[in-house]
């Protein structure tokens, strides 16, 4: 049965993020009661997600390498966008990511005081990414880079739980039609199933209605969003169950595609795409 491989330190899986860092990511989108720059929303979400994954994989002796994570930015440059310790590395084990944030910020958090109340506690908050928005949208090059990285990963880990790619973009490609290159990503596979691709479209349009996990392209506004819908993977049964936990109602043919995502939806969509499963 596909998507049932055990995820262990001997047989890790990976997440690969493709992040649009073009100039238009400076625009604002809805965030709670106000607005937030798209690039800031994406970097906050990435920092929060890396924090959660590190904690999920943490045991008393340290963080276990159930996953490796790659983050490819595309804008003025195309390539891995971790700084510091991992500059230039395609895939980084989660233990190294956890042990080497760019910085640790002190934040106050309410925690249970053990007697039914709450108390303030200073918590260290790790930061790996800062907002970046500069240059065009070289999506074709980013997809080719992702294909190379996934090919290397699958050669080294042929029986892994299939890699999950999260692609976050706000605009049309400026270096050609990326359709076939993106489609190629989900044609790749391990012995446990095909690579899964989530396409998440951020939109600055304040009147746009978010569309989450649709099963048809009929209501999508343009060829570009239709291309992102059609290249996205079908949601797996596990992901459909997670989507229902978040209040969505995906049909059996729903795809891993979200249009006009605000920050809440972005966080939910990434959670649905990446919630660790089968950890051993």
């Amino acid at each position, binding site marked *: 049965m596909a998507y049932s491989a*055990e995820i*262990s*330190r*001997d047989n890790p899986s990976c997440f690969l993020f493709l992040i649009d860092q073009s100039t238009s990511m400076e625009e604002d989108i809805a965030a709670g009661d106000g607005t937030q720059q798209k690039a800031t929303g994406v970097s906050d979400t990435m920092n929060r997600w890396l*924090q959660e994954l*590190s*904690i*999920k994989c*943490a*045991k*008393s*002796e*340290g*963080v276990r390498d159930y996953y490796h994570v790659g983050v490819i930015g595309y804008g003025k440059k195309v390539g891995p966008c971790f700084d510091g310790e991992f500059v230039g590395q395609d895939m980084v084990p989660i233990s190294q990511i*956890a*042990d080497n*944030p760019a910085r*640790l910020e002190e934040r106050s958090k309410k*925690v*249970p005081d*053990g*007697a*039914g109340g709450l108390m303030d506690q200073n*918590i*260290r*908050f*790790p930061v790996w990414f800062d907002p970046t928005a500069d240059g065009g949208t070289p999506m074709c090059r980013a997809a080719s880079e992702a294909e190379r990285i996934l090919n290397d990963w699958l050669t080294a880990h042929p029986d892994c739980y299939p890699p999950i790619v999260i692609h976050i973009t706000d605009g049309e490609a400026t270096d050609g039609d990326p359709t076939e290159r993106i489609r190629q990503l989900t044609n790749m596979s391990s012995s446990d199933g095909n690579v899964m691709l989530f396409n998440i479209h951020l939109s600055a349009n304040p009147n746009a209605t978010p569309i989450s996990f649709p099963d048809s392209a009929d209501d999508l506004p343009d060829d570009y969003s239709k291309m992102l819908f059609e290249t996205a993977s079908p949601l797996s049964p596990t992901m459909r169950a997670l989507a229902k936990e978040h209040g969505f109602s995906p049909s059996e043919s729903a795809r891993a595609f979200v249009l006009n995502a605000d920050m809440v939806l972005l966080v939910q969509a990434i959670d649905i795409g990446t919630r660790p499963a089968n*950890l*051993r």
Partner: protein
Amino acid sequence: MWIRTEAFHAPKRGNAESEYEDAFFPESGIAREVSTFRCAVADGASESAFSGLWARLLVRGFGRGRMRLARLRKLWQRAVGNGGGGADTGKQLPWYLEKKVLNGAHAALVGLSLRDGNGAVRPADPAPAGNGTDRVVGSLGGSWRAVAVGDSCVFHVRADELVAVGPVGKSEQFNNSPFLLASKSPQFIRRSDEYVSLVAGSWQPGDTFFLASDAISHWLLAEHEAGRPPWSMLRALGPETFRLFVEKLRTAGVLHNDDSTLMRVEVA
């Protein structure tokens, strides 16, 4: 009554011995005459940190008749605050453990109390203090009671018959989200009743009890349901044969790759 116990364990395939997160009490096998006896198996949750420590505190607390959760939680917090080593090292936890321990550790627990004669077993019965080694023949039997939270199970076996099992009664009832005892949840004590299972009965000389964490319990129930009673084979197990047996079942795909623990308690 005469009690003889032996416990066997095997960490998950791929994990080191130091990463084993089940626990059992007593930690060494015993063979002696006692009037009351308590033993326990706990299964620390894979998704928590310091859950092996929590499982050890729970089985020792139950086994020694000092099962006050508030006290055990303090002991856990004190040890974890020091990095889990138990000594005051003053070492700060890394940020990810600092956050993770706020959620506490979780574990399933099954504890068994045995009493000679047919009187009721009181929950606070102390651990046996006797150290005798002479077998006294002729016990008429007695009563037993098991307390469980989660999916670690007790099996009461007479000859080759399963007399009682709990808290899970069928192999199909195992899932990945049992209710567990938390090291950080003050609400639990007030809401515990619906999650605590009690199983009780009478034992006869020659009976055997098995306590097991979930993977082994699941397999035992499946074998029983399939008409292949495994009890005689389990009575013959030793530490080395247990590990070989576990590895064989894992390879055959019939035993989940999880920490595996089995305690055998023979009573006469």
